[in-house]
């Protein structure tokens, strides 16, 4: 009934030679057997977008967008309203199909061929701009649903958490500082706490790539600082792509910043380079 194969994922294939020849970049893809569902990052990059174009009724939300994100990187994406930041996330997560261009997850997984569910299983998690948690379920249950496990309907009928899974949920609860609120309904949380819960749900999913759309919107300064700390600690273990408007926050966490404007990349580099780029200044300050 579903067009992805759950069982294949993450099981090392006996013929897989992934990693053994990774150091010689020239022939990195030579002689390796492609493992279905396995994310191949031997070239260093985990996400490639090439010449992606999306138009809505003639308006080009993305216009020949090229972007490459390295495995384990923390990438910040900024840009004025309507620059195409959210559309870009929609394309990566399968919500929107691009009119042209390719989107690859690792070397082998073509994301434009997969649906939202399959992409989530492949290892890309997403936090929405408006915090979306399951309000009628408890905080614990929100994390339970997010937890990486067999998510087919039949299995859910008899699913029971084992000790390890409970520990994992408790661990995430501690990370997002919601241990106290674990058994209350998620709908009662404050805005900032909902943001955290959603980040926690991403962590429970254990994805390779986390897409975070305005993660600190509506947070207090204290919460923002804690979020920055959390993201920095996740860097390396996961790949993070953060879309934000809060420049102070970007300043704290950013290594590489990509500036989007009218659907394509305007500038890319470290914060100082980007801030001094005359094109960026023109876009942000008006002409």
């Amino acid at each position, binding site marked *: *009934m*579903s067009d992805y194969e759950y069982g294949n994922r993450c099981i090392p294939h006996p013929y897989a030679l992934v990693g053994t020849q990774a150091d010689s970049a020239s022939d990195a893809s030579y002689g390796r057997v492609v493992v279905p569902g396995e994310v191949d990052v031997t070239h260093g990059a985990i996400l490639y977008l090439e010449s992606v174009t999306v138009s809505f009724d003639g308006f080009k939300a993305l216009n020949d967008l090229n972007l490459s994100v390295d495995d384990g990187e923390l990438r910040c994406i900024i840009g004025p309203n309507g620059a195409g930041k959210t559309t870009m996330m929609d394309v990566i*997560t399968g*919500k929107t199909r691009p009119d042209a261009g390719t989107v690859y997850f690792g070397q082998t997984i073509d994301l434009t061929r997969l649906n*939202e*569910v399959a992409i*989530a*299983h492949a290892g890309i*998690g*997403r936090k*929405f701009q408006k915090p*979306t*948690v*399951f*309000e*009628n*379920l*408890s905080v*614990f*249950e929100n994390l*339970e*649903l*997010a937890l990486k496990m067999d*998510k*087919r*309907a*039949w299995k*859910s*009928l*008899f*699913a029971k*958490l084992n000790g390890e899974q409970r520990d994992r949920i408790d661990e995430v609860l501690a990370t997002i500082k919601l241990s106290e609120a674990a*058994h209350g309904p998620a709908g009662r949380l404050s805005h900032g706490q909902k943001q955290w819960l959603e980040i926690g*749900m991403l962590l429970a*999913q254990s994805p390779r790539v986390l897409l975070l759309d305005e993660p600190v919107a509506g947070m207090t300064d204290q919460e923002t600082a804690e979020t920055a700390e959390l993201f920095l600690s996740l860097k390396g273990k996961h790949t993070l792509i953060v879309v934000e408007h809060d420049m102070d926050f970007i300043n704290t966490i950013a290594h590489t910043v990509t500036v989007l404007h009218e659907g394509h990349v305007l500038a890319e580099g470290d914060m100082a380079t980007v801030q001094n780029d005359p094109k960026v200044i023109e876009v942000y300050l008006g002409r």
Partner: protein
Amino acid sequence: MTERRLFSPLGWTLFAIIVVLGLTMPLLHVWVPEGHTLHVSAYMLTLVGKILCYAAVALAMDLVWGYAGILSLGHGLFFALGGYAFGMYLMREIGREGQYQSDLPDFMVFLDWKELPWYWVGTEHFLWALFLVVAVPGIVAFVFGWFAFRSRIKGVYFSIITQALTFAAMLLFFRNDTGFGGNNGFTDFKRILGFPIAAPETRAVLFALTVVYVAGILVFCRWLTQSKFGRVLAAIRDAESRTMFVGYDPLPYKLGVWTLSAVLCGIAGALYVPQVGIINPSEMSPANSIEIAIWAAIGGRGTLIGPLIGAGVVNGAKSWFTVSFPDLWLYVLGALFVVATLYLPRGIVGLVRRRG
């Protein structure tokens, strides 16, 4: 906390008392002589049995509407399909005792048909009829749901299509050529498994089966909604696209609960027909299906027990009003619905819980 119980000890006690009381009614009908204060009349037994069948439908409705957020305005169709499937068997059981003393059901003789249409083949077998009771509503719901959910049709659009579906089916069943007795439907049943259908013992057994059925599906639905499956359904109801990005494919969940709900309705229909003694296309009328939604809303959706109470209260009131003030009933029903929507968002059950 996550180790949820099916019911509290108090809940189980109440449940047991109600089931025992329910099972006592047919005994009082059979064993206590007429005229005695404790005698339960055939009229009463039929009325309560009918309401119990409706309660099962309301429960099935709550499963899709209260827990999965899918408002069906066509559940009367599945109920009627189950009823018709079992009605075919009852028609065949009449044998040659009909008006025309033919092997064919009377309405076919009347239409001058010489043999049974292909879809009537095998309906003289009780087990085949039982299979049809489950399979026909199940398959119709599955195929319809597959296309609707795969196209991501939801909300009011889905409701309108289900309403159109039951209306179309009603028009189809009204036709004499469809082979289900046209607007008269099926009636004049004589026997079920060889037992006379109107005998007190037969009535009692049918009633007891209905009680067991309603009690059984209440426990089953409770288990289902307390499972992780139920929590995923709630997640799909509240934020479907979020659920997908978390990695759940909504299609099998929605399709599963939708088909299950239709099958539960079909079985309720099969229990209804022998007790009430008639099934005709009016069961598929759009108004009937809307009424099912009203039972659930008034009782309190998303509570399972609420829709059972709602079906009981509304139908109890209906049978009193339609005797005493027949003209007023539809106004009363409308008023009940408005009041429930405005002041009782959680229905009767919500009212009790707030006080308690």
